[in-house]
């Protein structure tokens, strides 16, 4: 067989996103190079996808790990899942707020627990049992996301990290009654 890899950030991007913020769309992201190198060296696909997602979780530009969006209480509740098609193994976590790389915790659920999905307090306890890297919650919270939460609260709305193309008949100016420019740039 031949190796192949694909990565994504968020679906839906503000069509007016400043060019300087579109840089990731014009050059191969470092995470892709890391994934390619892993596959070229013969590493299993499951190792490659975990490696790539870990890198993206560390980039505050994306809504995962550091830079995750905030709940209405201003807290972080992250979630992640991983699946190995070789044997259809899977692991997932929800509601983690201190785990630096939720995707790696999901993999530990897959490989070192008798379960496939742990959430909230149970996931946090499992993370500590497994010795994964723990961060203060402030590590995940960015100024941009605090500002966006304020806007969302003012509008009493959930902000999606996707945008709808004009072809679906939705105004390019407003969405859910909000200026489209305030939607998450992902």
């Amino acid at each position, binding site marked *: 067989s031949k190796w192949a890899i694909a*990565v994504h950030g968020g679906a839906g991007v503000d069509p007016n996103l400043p060019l300087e913020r579109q840089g990731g769309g014009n050059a191969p992201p470092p995470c892709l190079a890391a994934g390619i190198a892993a596959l070229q060296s013969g590493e299993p696909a499951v190792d490659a996808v975990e490696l790539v997602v870990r890198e993206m979780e560390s980039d505050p530009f994306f809504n995962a790990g550091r830079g995750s969006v905030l709940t209405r209480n201003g807290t972080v509740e992250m979630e992640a899942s991983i699946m190995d098609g070789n044997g259809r193994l899977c692991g997932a976590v929800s509601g983690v707020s201190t785990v630096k790389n939720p995707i790696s915790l999901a993999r530990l659920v897959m490989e070192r627990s008798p379960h496939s999905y742990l959430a909230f307090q149970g996931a946090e306890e499992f993370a500590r049992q497994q010795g994964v890297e723990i961060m203060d919650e402030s590590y995940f919270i960015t100024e941009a996301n605090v500002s966006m939460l304020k806007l969302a609260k003012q509008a009493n*709305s*959930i*902000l999606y990290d996707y945008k709808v193309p004009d072809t679906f008949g939705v105004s390019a100016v407003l969405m859910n009654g909000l200026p489209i420019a305030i939607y*998450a740039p992902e």
Partner: protein
Amino acid sequence: TVGCTAVDKYGRCAAATSTGGLMNKINGRIGDSPLIGSGTYACRDCAVSCTGEGEAIIRATLARDVAALMEYKGMGLKEAVDCAIKEKLDKGFAGLIAVSAKGEVAYGFNTSGMFRACADEDGFMEVAIWE
């Protein structure tokens, strides 16, 4: 939301997805990403990772649907991805990336754009946001 799908030189597929969910979400909200079969899925045929409106992705079991279309209808990867995005999402908005065990890559979305990048052993590489 971020995600990655890969197939290694032995034809083993894997998928991973990670997210913070929705801004201003109610505490305790579970999205599609941790729900295997909705936002993430991998089997012998393919691996899929989704992003977008989580509630719609859950209703459509979007990632599993791509695999099921290949498994039960014999569709190719690209055909299955297009069918899932265009026919299965109802009024939801989402995007996904996928790889097949044969080393193919495909993506699809019905939003204004999706940050994505892909590469394969033959030297193909694509990095894009828009359609």
